[in-house]
């Protein structure tokens, strides 16, 4: 059996960085059997044996009811996993130990890694890892993923020395009694009885019994059994931390933070930051894209065109070449630029401040402030943004967020807007499209929150310290993200491009153009070939622009279409139907019904707004 090691820890403890150190290239994103939550896995080697390394999503606890926590529980309990590596943040050891104590209860072979020791040292915090190892009964390493210190010892320790922890949380005696009696009656182990007391598990009889016992405990303590268990664990984590952490207590200034979280100047700063981000992506992306597109033109597409092949094979090759061209032409200039800016914001700790600033406005749209994070990610690409909605608390919020995200103009739509409107109409007109879309997003949110009312549970977010982002970390994070994007979007791009090529080859597109012409001409006032361009836009948004150029037969679009026509075309293709990759992810994340509903809504909205502009201005 191959060795398999899983990294588990709180969010933001540097797990991903360690994972990246351990595995290097060859990372795969996949689903764990029976779960839709993505899991990063990579390969490594130790003593000529192959090791699979899993990077589990960051969690604060194993016993939350959410899907992510359920996945982490399953991996921890999976016998195929050889060893667990609990990654702890040296600067927040006490709270991190709380999770470790839960992991320890599974009795699986494990080892602990106290990460960020360099940052802790800067803040006057020292952790006695030897003492910690003695208290927990497992090997403990001190590392710094940022500098690479201690990383090389993780795999050897995990493979050779991992063992079940000996640490045990002393629970309240009523809880202990209940655990004993449940464990005896149902023949389960301590950990399962403890989880049953908190309502987790899948044996209905056990849950029933545990529910009754738990209620009795709750009455006696005026606290639920779950609260008592949690409190006991926190207290034990506190006791351990007190013994191993020495802190000189270096305080941190809060002046900047104060500035960022007040309505004024916080909100203007937030708006300014977002605008600046878009502008930079707009400018940098536009310049870089030209070079990349040209390189593919000369390096790949022209040679393909020159090949002497069967027309069908040539069409397929050309489609593959086009997919690569536009994939890289979008991915690096626009999305990568965006991801770098996003990583800067995240690593500086600004995003959680933004979430709180936006909380009240988001409430009006039936969401919480944290939804601003996937919405902002949507400006880069809707696909990872939709996956980011997992952090929202309820399905209702996820659906509302998904509606709004699919309307956010992603990088590909930025290409359409800048290529058509900014180039041939005016920069102001291009920005007005953003404005129109923004207004529509807000309106959609307001309406959805009325149509689908539901309880709002509120938001609890960790506020990381504000700090200066490290350039290497920012690049690394952006690189991991763009890699994820390429893994998910590239295959879809290739397939859809080939399908489209074949459709064109067999004449299906001409038929579509004829059928759709009345809508295109009558409703939107666009030339008939524009409908084909819009169709291509469903596959990949920026293709709407490229196709339009090809079908119009000229790159000077202003010679064949009026300003209003170009404007209508850009706004319709921005709004109408999320691209095929987005629809696929929507379906996977929220089901076919929601995906269909959102698609229909955007078609209606796109055509409606296009028609409105046509009849008012045209």
């Amino acid at each position, binding site marked *: 059996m191959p060795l398999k090691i899983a990294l588990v820890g709180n969010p933001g403890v540097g797990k991903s960085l360690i994972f990246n150190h351990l595995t290097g290239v060859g990372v795969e994103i996949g689903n764990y059997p029976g779960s839709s939550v993505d899991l990063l896995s990579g390969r490594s080697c130790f003593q000529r044996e192959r090791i699979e390394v899993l990077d589990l999503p960051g969690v*604060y606890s194993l016993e939350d009811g959410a899907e992510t926590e359920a996945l982490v529980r399953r991996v921890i309990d999976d016998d195929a996993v050889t060893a667990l590596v609990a990654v702890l943040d040296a600067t927040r050891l006490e709270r991190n130990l709380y999770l470790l104590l839960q992991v320890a209860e599974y009795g699986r072979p494990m080892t602990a890694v106290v990460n960020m020791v360099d940052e802790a040292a800067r803040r006057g915090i020292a952790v006695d890892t030897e003492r910690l190892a003695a208290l927990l009964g497992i090997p403990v390493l001190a590392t710094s993923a940022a500098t690479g210190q201690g990383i090389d010892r993780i795999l050897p320790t995990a493979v050779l020395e991992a063992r079940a922890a000996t640490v045990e949380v002393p629970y309240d005696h009523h809880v202990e009694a209940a655990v004993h009696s449940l464990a005896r009656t149902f023949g389960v182990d301590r950990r399962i009885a403890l989880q049953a007391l908190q309502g987790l598990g899948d044996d209905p009889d056990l849950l029933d019994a545990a529910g009754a016992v738990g209620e009795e405990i709750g009455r006696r303590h005026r606290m639920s059994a779950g609260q008592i268990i949690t409190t006991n664990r926190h207290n034990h984590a506190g006791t351990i931390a007190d013994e191993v952490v020495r802190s000189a207590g270096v305080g941190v200034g809060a002046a900047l933070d104060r500035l960022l979280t007040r309505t004024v100047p916080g909100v203007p700063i937030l708006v300014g930051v977002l605008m600046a981000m878009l502008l930079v992506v707009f400018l940098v992306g536009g310049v870089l894209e030209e070079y990349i597109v040209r390189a593919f033109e000369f390096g790949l597409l022209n040679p393909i065109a020159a090949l002497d092949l069967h027309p069908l094979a040539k069409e397929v090759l050309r489609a593959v070449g086009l997919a690569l061209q536009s994939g890289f032409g979008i991915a690096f200039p626009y999305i990568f630029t965006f991801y770098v800016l996003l990583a800067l914001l995240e690593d500086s700790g600004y995003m959680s401040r933004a979430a709180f600033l936006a909380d009240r406005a988001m409430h009006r749209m039936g969401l919480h402030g944290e939804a601003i994070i996937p919405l902002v990610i949507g400006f880069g690409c809707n696909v990872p943004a939709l996956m980011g909605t997992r952090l929202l608390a309820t399905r209702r919020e996820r659906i509302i967020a998904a509606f709004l995200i699919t309307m956010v103009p992603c990088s590909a739509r930025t290409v359409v807007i800048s290529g058509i409107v900014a180039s041939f109409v005016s920069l102001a007109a291009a920005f007005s499209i953003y404005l129109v879309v923004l207004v529509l997003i807000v309106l959609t949110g307001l309406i959805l929150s009325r149509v689908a009312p539901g309880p709002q549970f509120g*938001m609890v977010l*960790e506020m990381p310290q504000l700090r200066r982002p490290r350039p290497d970390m920012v690049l690394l994070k952006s690189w991991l993200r763009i890699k994820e994007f390429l893994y998910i979007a590239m295959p879809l791009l290739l397939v859809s491009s080939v399908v489209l090529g074949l459709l064109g080859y067999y004449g299906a597109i001409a038929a579509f153009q004829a059928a759709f012409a009345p809508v295109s001409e009558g409703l939107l006032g666009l030339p008939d070939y524009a409908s084909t361009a819009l169709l291509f836009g469903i596959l990949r948004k920026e293709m709407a622009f490229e196709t339009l150029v090809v079908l119009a037969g000229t790159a000077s679009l202003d010679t064949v279409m009026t300003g209003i026509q170009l404007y209508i075309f850009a706004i319709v293709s921005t709004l109408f139907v999320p691209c095929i990759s987005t629809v696929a992810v929507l379906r996977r994340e929220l089901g076919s019904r929601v995906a269909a509903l959102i698609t229909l809504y955007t078609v209606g909205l796109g055509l409606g707004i296009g028609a409105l502009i046509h009849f008012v201005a045209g």
Partner: protein
Amino acid sequence: MIMTEPATDREEDLLEALLEAPGIDRAALAARLELEPEALARLEDRAVVHGRLERDGRGEFRLSPEGHRIARRIARHHRTLACFFEQLGMAREAANREACTLEHGVSDEAIARLADHLHCPAPCERPCEGSGEEAEGHPLLDYGEGERVCITAVRPCGRYRRLMDMGVVPGEEVVVRRRLSNHAVVIEVKGCEIGLSPECAATVLATPCP
């Protein structure tokens, strides 16, 4: 000395609204209760006289411990009744309207029995209602920046599991670091700063540390 009179139905509605929408502005509150501003002011004055509302440092009204108890009781009545009517097949709107009328007259025993009978949704699925009803203290919302407070109870509703996992547990000492203009609160707990939106901050009760 003023004789304490039991709260009227209107007053109970007011207390319930303040529990459910902490930090609500007066215009929205009046609209929610379908009252004229003057009538709302009279109602608030009456609640203050009878010790069910207090004025905080900034002149805003907040629930007194007694007001809290009443509001939680009425809110519990409301939810149980609404849940019952919905299970009978009524639309949510109608069920809520019906519950609004009946919540004041119904006895605690009837509600307790109804709740047992219904198996209403699990705690994490329902918005807030208090166990730890007798717990002392004020919601975190009521404390100012820099105050060091001890958590006395976290009401088991909403995001309480996440709160508890982050270390907001009874007995824990926390510092209120910042209060945002939208009533969100940033607290320091176990050396980490965490932000709570107003709904969540309202579910955490605390007393000033000795």
